[in-house]
Structures are given as structure tokens and as C-alpha cells.
């Protein structure tokens, strides 16, 4: 008796494939910092009730905004592969300059702000010139700068502290800068938000952002790519200096106090923050948001510790420990993330394939083994690399797509003339002619492309509608495989898998999840839509003889389905052949009203058994190198002929597997059947009809008329 509860069958519902998809998202790096931030805030609210309340937020918001501005500047430097230890000193210098100008010189607020920015930029320039152009080491240079600015500040303070403290200011706009707010948001917080937004756009969407990342990732590679590395590094330090001084100006407006300890240890808090946020110390990885998230964590922790009345030493101690932990985690994460992804991407599921018809034991089986493909004529031996599909035009010229991304054309009485008809790139697979005589092809990795008779290439589509509930962006057409043109001009084509591509298409079989789909491109509207989702590797596509439905193959479920495209059953999908003994590939119309189907490989009993044991396959994937993996057999296949009701009419085998090493497609033309194979080095042809009785693959009447 069958068990009611089948654990293996449930594995199909288990979304294990999402683990890999989530891990391959760029935002995955932010998950840990954001989680830590949320936990920190919850703890803060519990330790100090009202911590997240409006009044407290408004009060610590001002403090945080100053630190946040410094963090943004430092994040830019770190992102670019450097470090700036002088931010605290520049911050203090900004504070001093602002207070000196407002108190002693009685300057207007705008001038004070501008002066702060200029002083900051100037100090950043010193760092930038030394590190960017003279290529000094960032760590020592900025350490020296820190000492020098501090010393200079001390001398300036000795001379001016009394004058600053002794004067009275009466400047409304200055006070507003320190205490005012717009719509309840403190001025400096607003500035931080604006700066962060601008920086986020610059870093992710602009040329300078990409350059910073490139230089941070690898100076040498960035140099080779033509990026001005020195100027890029220089600009990062200028930005850092400017923002630090700006933060110092806000501090001046808020506190109106000069002291030797202003900004002491600030650089440490900020570095801890951005490392916590996941801005990599090595450069090239990070974001504005993450820098701020990390800074919030560091700030809240140190702020809380101060509130609890702990001596200042504790704050430094805790921050130091946090920095060490965060750095260690960052290094481990960066090193192991790809391994984790590699180990977890393929996520096998349960697939029960019914026992197929026996091929050898039963001579009356429609699939009975024979040697009808053993004597074939070979065309273009070693002149084509992987002719997945073949097609002939009205003049009897033979076209095929190859691994180099070419469409090769053979012509002449014996196909002895070979030429590159079009160089599309990608990996051209399925081929079809549309009504205008254009060659339409599914290009794996690119989408649906057309080639005019003149050889001119044009794009039809490269994306479809995005599904609502997928993690991976499935609007991309990863594995466009085969196509056919319906009588109304619509092009139906298959996307083999949304998770794998041409190099890994066999892994999709090992995973056995319905990752494939059938798409439709409507040339009259120029739109692409998904018409059937959830195919176990959608492969061959063929419009039926009456033009009212489309047949398509699911390679790893070993079924042929039919999608109705007109008439009362439009949109309905039904099974035509349920249980093939092999993996179906391309389908094409035969001249006698039936269909040709290529079985790229045959199922084995062991394979079928392994399909029902996902955990077995998972362990195999993890423990063995790919070359050792059990995989769908694509060494021996055959050609099958079937009718509209799914009856198998005929079968052509190459018993030895020598003359036709692999067959993925076939095309009937004037009594010959032309055969192509995804990984072969030849096109073969075999006569399937006597010379007198020859005919084309049937064309639709409408197409025959319009193409003349």
C-alpha cells in the first residue's frame, strides 16, 4: 500500500532552491547588519524605555547626524580601498573654524558653512594628494595628518580659546542651524538624509561610483580598464575631509564649545560602524545604506553605555571588541559566501517518472531498437561546433547555429559551400523562418533574435513579464531554446530554465524542479509574455498542423504537452505523450501530417530511481566533483515520429551510437531528414521518403503566400 504521507514528495514543495537564489542576491550582504541593527534598537528600547520615542530621537538624531556625515565620508574612502584616520581631527578643526568665525569674526552663517567646507576640502586635499598622487600609504599618511591637525588645533586653541568663549553671538540663523528643524526633522539630520541619498545614487548609478568601486576592488585592474586611479583616490579623500568638516560645523552650532577633546575617538566609532555595516576594509564592497546601518549600531551602543552611567572606558572597550568581531566575520563571510552559494544552489526535488515502455525486450514496441541511422550522409564534418538545430530555406540552403554564436549556412548541391551567415553571439539554438523570410532564432543567454535574408541581425525580445513571487529576476530569458511561428505570426518559444544556462543545463535535470516555461512574442504588439510556467526544462516547440495549438517538450519530465492558442480551448494545456522513454528535445512537423521528435537521451532505471531520492542527489552534488555526477544520459538517443493524438508511429535509432553521436533536432526537407546535435561536430541527413514522394516540412498556407 502506498504511504499516505510521502516525505520525499513533500520535498517538491520545500523551497530549497530559494536558499541559493537569496544568497546570490547583491543585497544579501546587508541582511546581517540590518538584523543586528534591529536587535540593537529593540534592546535599547528595553534597557532604556522611551529610547525610540520622538523626543529622544530628535535629541540623539542631531548627534547621530554629525557622526553619520563623517561615516559617509569615511565609507567613500574605504569603498575606494583606503582608510582615513584623520576624520576626527578634521571634524574638530571644522568645529574650531566655525566657532572662530562666528564668535570672533562675527561672520554670517552661510559664510561660516562655506568656510567649513573649504577648510575640510583643503585638509582632504592634503591627504588626497599624498595618497592619490604621491601614492603614500593611506594608514600612515592619515595617521600623521591626524597628529598634525590635532597639534595645530591645540596651538590655535591656546591662542584663541578665550576670545571664542568670551564673545556673545546674536545670530538667529546660526542658532537655527544648531537647534532648528524642518517639519520636526533636525536640520543636520535633513542634511544627512539628502547627502546620503545623493551619495547612494552616485555610488550605485553614476560613473564616479563605479570608478570608486573598481579602484577599491583592484587598483591594477581599474588602471588597466582605463580608470584614472590617482584622481579617483584623490577625490575620495577630498569628500571625506569635506564631510567631516561639515559635521564639525554642525557640532559647533549645536554645542558652541571648543575643547581639546572634540572629536577624539570619533574615527574609531565611525570605523567600527562602517565595518559593522559590511563596508569591506579591503575596498570594493559596501554601500551608503550599510555604512549608515552600521554606524547606527555603533552609535546606539556607545550612547546607551554612556546613558547607563558607565565610565567612558567601557564604551571604547565594547566598541573595540565589536570591531574585532565584525572584522573577523567580514573576512569569513567574504571568503565563504561563494562556497556557500555553490554548495546550496542546486536544490534537488522529488520527481516520480512512471516506468517507460521497454525498448529492447519487446520487438513490437514502437521504440524497438534499429539501425536506421547507422548509414547517414554527413554534412560539414568538423566545420560546425554544436549544431543544435538545423533548418533549410526555400532554395535548399542549410542553416545552423554553433557554439561560437554564429549562424552557419551551407549551400551548393552537396552543401560543400560553408559561410558564416550571421554572427549573433550568445548561443543560437532553435531556428525558424517567419512569414517575411527572416530567420528567427532562440539565442541562449540573449533572447529571441532575427536575421534578415541580407544577414542583418535584429532583436525581437530579451525579456518577459516578471513573476510576482520569485526571488530571482525571471524577466530575464536565460535559456531561450526552441521556437516556432504560429500562423497568426506570434512566435512561441521555450525558456529551458530560469535557474540554469547552456553550460549547466544538465544540472537542471539533476535538480528536477519545474524551472522552465513557454513564452510568446507577439510581433504586432511587440510584447512578450509567459504563457506556461512550470515546465521541467521546456525544450522543443512546434505549432500543430492545423495551427490551433502549440506542442512543446519537457525534457526532464519526459512529456510532450499541447497549448491551445486558438479556438474554444485557448490557453488550456494538455498532455499529448505522457511517458517517453527518453528526454525529448526539438519537435518539428513532418510532411505527412505527423511530427518528428528528437529524444536527446534515454532514461535509465537508475536515473528514474535517483529522481525519487532528492537527498541522495543532494549528497552526491556536495560530495563529488561535477564530472562524476550522475546525469541524464545524452549519449544515445533516437528520432521518434508521432501523430496529433500522441501515438508513436515510427522510431529511428543509431544502435552503435557512432554515426549520429547525439541528436537534438531534425528537419524534414524533400524526403531527407536533417539531424543536428548540441555537442556534435557534424550535421547528418538520412532519407526518409523515396525521391519521387518528397515534400517540404509543411508550411502554413498563410505563410506560403506572404513569403512570395
Amino acid at each position, binding site marked *: 500500500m502506498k504511504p499516505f504521507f510521502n516525505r520525499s514528495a513533500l520535498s517538491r514543495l520545500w523551497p530549497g532552491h530559494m536558499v541559493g537564489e537569496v544568497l546570490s542576491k547583491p543585497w544579501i550582504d546587508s541582511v546581517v547588519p540590518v538584523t543586528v541593527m534591529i536587535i540593537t534598537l529593540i534592546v535599547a528600547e528595553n534597557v532604556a524605555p522611551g529610547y525610540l520615542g520622538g523626543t529622544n530621537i530628535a535629541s540623539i538624531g542631531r548627534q547621530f547626524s554629525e557622526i553619520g556625515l563623517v561615516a559617509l565620508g569615511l565609507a567613500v574612502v574605504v569603498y575606494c580601498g583606503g582608510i582615513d584616520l584623520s576624520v576626527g581631527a578634521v571634524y574638530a578643526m571644522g568645529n574650531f573654524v566655525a566657532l572662530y568665525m562666528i564668535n570672533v569674526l562675527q561672520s554670517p552663517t552661510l559664510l561660516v558653512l562655506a568656510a567649513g567646507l573649504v577648510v575640510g576640502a583643503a585638509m582632504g586635499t592634503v591627504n588626497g594628494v599624498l595618497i592619490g598622487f604621491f601614492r603614500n600609504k593611506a594608514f600612515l599618511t592619515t595617521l600623521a595628518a591626524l597628529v598634525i591637525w590635532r597639534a595645530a588645533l591645540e596651538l590655535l586653541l591656546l591662542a584663541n580659546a578665550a576670545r571664542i568663549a568670551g564673545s556673545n553671538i546674536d545670530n538667529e540663523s546660526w542658532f537655527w542651524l544648531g537647534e532648528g528643524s524642518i517639519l520636526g526633522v533636525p536640520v543636520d539630520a535633513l542634511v544627512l538624509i539628502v547627502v546620503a541619498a545623493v551619495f547612494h545614487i552616485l555610488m550605485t548609478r553614476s560613473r564616479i561610483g563605479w570608478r570608486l568601486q573598481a579602484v577599491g576592488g583592484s587598483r591594477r585592474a581599474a588602471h588597466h580598464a582605463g580608470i584614472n586611479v590617482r584622481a579617483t583616490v584623490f577625490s575620495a579623500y577630498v569628500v571625506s575631509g569635506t564631510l567631516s568638516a561639515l559635521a564639525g560645523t554642525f557640532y559647533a552650532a549645536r554645542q558652541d564649545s571648543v575643547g581639546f577633546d572634540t572629536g577624539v575617538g570619533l574615527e574609531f566609532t565611525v570605523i567600527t560602524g562602517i565595518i559593522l555595516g559590511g563596508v569591506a576594509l579591503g575596498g570594493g564592497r559596501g554601500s551608503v545604506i550599510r555604512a549608515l546601518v552600521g554606524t547606527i549600531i555603533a552609535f546606539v551602543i556607545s550612547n546607551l553605555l554612556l546613558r547607563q552611567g558607565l565610565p567612558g572606558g567601557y564604551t571604547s572597550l565594547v566598541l573595540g571588541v565589536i570591531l574585532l568581531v565584525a572584522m573577523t566575520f567580514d573576512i569569513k563571510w567574504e571568503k565563504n559566501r561563494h562556497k556557500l552559494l555553490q554548495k546550496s544552489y542546486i536544490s534537488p526535488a522529488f520527481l516520480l517518472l512512471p516506468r517507460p515502455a521497454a525498448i529492447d525486450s519487446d520487438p513490437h514496441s514502437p521504440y524497438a531498437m534499429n539501425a536506421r541511422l547507422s548509414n547517414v550522409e554527413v554534412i560539414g564534418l568538423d566545420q560546425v561546433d554544436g549544431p543544435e538545430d538545423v533548418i533549410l530555406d526555400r532554395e535548399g540552403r542549410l542553416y545552423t547555429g554553433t557554439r561560437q554564436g554564429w549562424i552557419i549556412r551551407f549551400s551548393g548541391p552537396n552543401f560543400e559551400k560553408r559561410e558564416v551567415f550571421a554572427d549573433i553571439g550568445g548561443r543560437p539554438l532553435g531556428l525558424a523562418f517567419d512569414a517575411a523570410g527572416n530567420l528567427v532564432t532562440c539565442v541562449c543567454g540573449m533572447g529571441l533574435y532575427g536575421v534578415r535574408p541580407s544577414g542583418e541581425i535584429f532583436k525581437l525580445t530579451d525579456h518577459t513579464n516578471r513573476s510576482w513571487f520569485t526571488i530571482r529576476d525571471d524577466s530575464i530569458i536565460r535559456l531561450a531554446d526552441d521556437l516556432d511561428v504560429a500562423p497568426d505570426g506570434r512566435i512561441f518559444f521555450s525558456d529551458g530554465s530560469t535557474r540554469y544556462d547552456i553550460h549547466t543545463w544538465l544540472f537542471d535535470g539533476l535538480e528536477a524542479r519545474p524551472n522552465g516555461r513557454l513564452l510568446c512574442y507577439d510581433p504586432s504588439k511587440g510584447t512578450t509574455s509567459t504563457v506556461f510556467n512550470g515546465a521541467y526544462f521546456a525544450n522543443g516547440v512546434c505549432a500543430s498542423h492545423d495551427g490551433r495549438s502549440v506542442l512543446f517538450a519537457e525534457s526532464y519530465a519526459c512529456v510532450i504537452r499541447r497549448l491551445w492558442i486558438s479556438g474554444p480551448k485557448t490557453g488550456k494545456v494538455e498532455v499529448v505523450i505522457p511517458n517517453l522513454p527518453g528526454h525529448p528535445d526539438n519537435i518539428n512537423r513532418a510532411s505527412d501530417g505527423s511530427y518528428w521528435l528528437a529524444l536527446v537521451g534515454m532514461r535509465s532505471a*537508475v536515473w528514474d530511481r535517483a529522481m525519487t*531520492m*532528492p537527498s541522495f542527489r543532494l549528497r552526491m552534488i556536495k*560530495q563529488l*566533483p561535477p564530472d*562524476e555526477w550522475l*546525469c541524464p544520459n545524452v*549519449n544515445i538517443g533516437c528520432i521518434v515520429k508521432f501523430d496529433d493524438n500522441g501515438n508513436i508511429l515510427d522510431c529511428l535509432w543509431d544502435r552503435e551510437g*557512432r554515426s549520429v*553521436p547525439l541528436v537534438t533536432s531534425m528537419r524534414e526537407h524533400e524526403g531527407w531528414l536533417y539531424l543536428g546535435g548540441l555537442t556534435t561536430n557534424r550535421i547528418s541527413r538520412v532519407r526518409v521518403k523515396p525521391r519521387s514522394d518528397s515534400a517540404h516540412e509543411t508550411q502554413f498556407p498563410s505563410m506560403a503566400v506572404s513569403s512570395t
Partner: protein
Amino acid sequence: MTFYFAELFKEVVLRRPSRRAIPALDGQWKANEKLETCPAFARGLQEADAIAAGNDGLVYAASGNTVAVLQSDGRLIDSIGGFQAPITALGWSESRGPLIAAEGLGVYAIPPGKTRELLGGTEALGCITAIAEADDTIYLAQGSTRNRYADWRRSLMEHDRSGRILRWEGENEEVNVLASGLAFPFGLAADGPANEELVFTEAWSYSIRTLKLATSGVAVGIDNLPGYPARIVADGQGGWFVSFLALRTQLVEFVLREPKFLRRMIGTVPQEFWIAPSLSPNDDHRQPQQLGLLRTHGVRKPWAPGRSYGLIAHFDRAFNVVSTLHSRADGERHGTLGLCMSGSRLLATTFAQSAILLPLGGTHES
């Protein structure tokens, strides 16, 4: 469902202790084409398996239910038939002539000038894989007491440890067990004239072992071989030639660690289509495939993780490998089962081509 995280956890966090790796074909094991290109001694046998050379200059080769008798130039001159079961092992005795083991029927001798006689006490012995004689005593290797010789795949997949080394006592006509609980002893040879110990191969533990006759103590000569050792013969200079059934592959080793899958595979799939070593490189469509085995441009890579392989290794007295002869994954001479010395010539049978090869000491061309 839980398996998913459990496996991930084990693999990434726990870092399971490394399994004993299959040694790479390196150093003296480095792959070559020597077996693929060596001369042939005879062709056209059916399922050539065990082979033995007599002092009469004749060569005896098992071929299904019969024994082919060949002259020293490879010409077939006779065949010994009439056995009701496949011949599983051959040997030669000075006094008793050719020794022939038939599956489940026992061991026969054909003394010079006499008719075939059954060695008393060996009746109903199955899966005799090798026969050796020393000092007029006959020793037998029995691969398994649970499985027939033809079911060697089942024996491997069941982790069968029921093999034995036997001694036939001619006087009492009985069989004594010298060692038992062995993982398919496949080859057996006596250690020269001193006759102190026997050397045998244990296929499913990938090792060559020695058996002290005085104490019946078994010791490891060499283990963790890269393939499943089959027959072993003395090279006449203290060393040994060993033939290999096939190479170990990671997939087979993996499957051997998967009891649930093994149970289902053994229960529902015919033996020849299991994930298991094979004796010939035939591409049957019912066989399981591996990624590395797929043909590109109609060609199979010689370094593919093949199900079948041809390999003969030469070991010195201390079981250091001296040289090896290979027929690689893209070759044809796979399933090297039988091995014997005929004078100074080494003869080997390949199951895949049903031929007898002359890997060493051969004079005529293939």
C-alpha cells in the same frame, strides 16, 4: 525537508572527516596506452575470463562454459566442453594437469593421459575465483559464499565479506578453510618455491594481502589501490603482476555509502545497469551516465570517470608498484580479468574484446 539544512550544516560547518580518497593515477600509476596498443595473442573467444598456462606449453582460457586450449603461438587447437556451468577459474598442477573450476559444480582436474575427474570435497563450491598450486597442494580462492561469480556486482554492492581461502587436502578429499570473512578474494598465487605464504587480492577492499601458511595469519601487502584488483601471478623474480577489474570511481564509492539507494537499486534494477563497475565500455542506453562520460564531437575523453577500464600493474617483492599498463576510458581493452605467465610471457584476457593479449614479452604484432 530537514535533510536540506542538515546536509548543509554537516558539509559547511562540521566539515566531515575526510574519507579515504581514491589515489590519483600518478607516478608509476600514470596512465598510458600500453595495454591498448600491445600485441594480441588470440582473438575470437567468448567472454574471455580466467586463463592458465601449463608446463606442456599450452594455454587454457575460460570462455563461457568451455575451456579453450591454445598453442604457444595462439592457435586454438582444442576446447574442453561439457561443463554445465560457467568456468570461473583455471589453474595448472604438475601432477594433475589443468584445474578447472565450474560455478557450483566444483573443481576438476584432467591428469595427463586420463579423463576428467572431480577433486573430492569440492562439490558444490561456488564462486571459485582462482586456483594456485604449490608443493603439490592445491589452494582455492572463493570470492563469496553468498553470491555466484557472475553476480560479482551484487557482491560488491552488498558489502559482501564472505570470501574464503581454501586448501584442498588430496588425501582425505576434503577442503579446509585457511581464511574467511574476506571481501571477494579474486586472485591467488603461491609465493615461489619456499611456499611459506600465499598472496591474494581482495577486490572489494582494494588491497593485496598475504596469508602465512604456518599460522593462517593474514597481513596487508598494499591497500587503497586505485582499482579493484583481480587475478595475481608471480613474475618469476619475486614480484607480482596484478590485473584489475576496473578503476574505482567516486560515484561508485559514493553509492556504496548510500544504503537506502543501494537497497532500492539492487531491488529494482538489473545488475548490468547499476551504478557499478563494468567490464566493457559499451554505451547501452539503459546504463546510468556521468557528466564526464558524455561525448563531445562524438569523442569520449580518455580521462573520463569510466565505468570500465583496462589495467595491469607490476609490483615488486615489497608490493611497490614498478610499472602499469593501461587501456583508458576511450579505449576498448577493458575488463582485464585473467592473467598468467607462459614462460617469460605475460598473457592477459580482456572481457570487453574477448581477446588474449600479450602485454609483456610478446613477439608477434597485434
